[in-house]
């Protein structure tokens, strides 16, 4: 069975870098183990690299080497797409590139910790639709619940939509 496709917000990767043993770190585990397929874009990676190497984040990672280490892991574990269709769905224009990648890759899940914008966009069923592409917007903890309840090898996106 084809692995489910996910798009990770930069805040998930940064949180995983700071605490690799929390929910975000466990999502990274699934990504690096190829139990889910992560899609990203150069625009997302540019933001990630900037934020990971920010002095504020480096205080927690202790060294720039660790920041680049996580960046490298995420980049090497993800499929980089070049979206041709652009969306304007979030009040924060920086978030739109996540939606561009979801649509371009046909991802089933957008995983984010952004309570101010991204998570507010979903409906009561945690769904969001771009043109006719329907997907779930979840926090890392919610995503892990879905994986655990369905079993990572057998879960089908349609069961949650």
């Amino acid at each position, binding site marked *: 069975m084809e692995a489910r496709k996910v798009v990770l917000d930069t*805040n998930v990767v*940064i*949180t995983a870098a*700071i*605490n*690799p*043993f*929390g929910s975000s*770190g466990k999502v*990274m*585990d699934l990504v*690096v*183990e190829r139990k889910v397929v992560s899609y990203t874009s150069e625009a997302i990676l540019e*933001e990630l690299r*900037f*934020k990971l190497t*920010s002095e*504020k*984040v480096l205080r*927690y990672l*202790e060294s720039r*080497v*660790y920041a*680049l*280490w*996580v960046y*490298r*892991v995420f980049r*090497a*574990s993800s499929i980089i797409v070049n979206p041709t269709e652009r969306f304007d769905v979030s009040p924060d224009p*920086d978030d739109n590139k996540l939606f561009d990648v979801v649509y371009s890759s046909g991802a089933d899940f957008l995983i984010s*910790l952004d*309570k101010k914008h991204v998570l507010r966009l979903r409906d009561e069923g945690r769904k969001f639709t771009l043109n006719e592409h329907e997907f779930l917007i979840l926090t890392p903890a919610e995503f892990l619940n879905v994986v655990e309840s369905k079993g990572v090898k057998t879960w089908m996106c349609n069961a949650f939509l």
Partner: protein
Amino acid sequence: MREIDELVESGEFSSRSELIKEAVRFFLLHYESPKELWETYKLLARERRTPSKEEVEKLLEEVDEEWKRARSS
């Protein structure tokens, strides 16, 4: 260690730290398995202090503001 010093003395690298930096860069660029790289990272991070959820949320907001400022300038 002696081999490292020999490389520095022979002029291949200007200092030990430069050699180590280069070795880490090589490791990051050429390591074939992201999974092994991630597992090693987790081992190294094991002793690190885990900040609270609130602390991480605040940090994420601050870094996002920094990113937006840098983009607009």
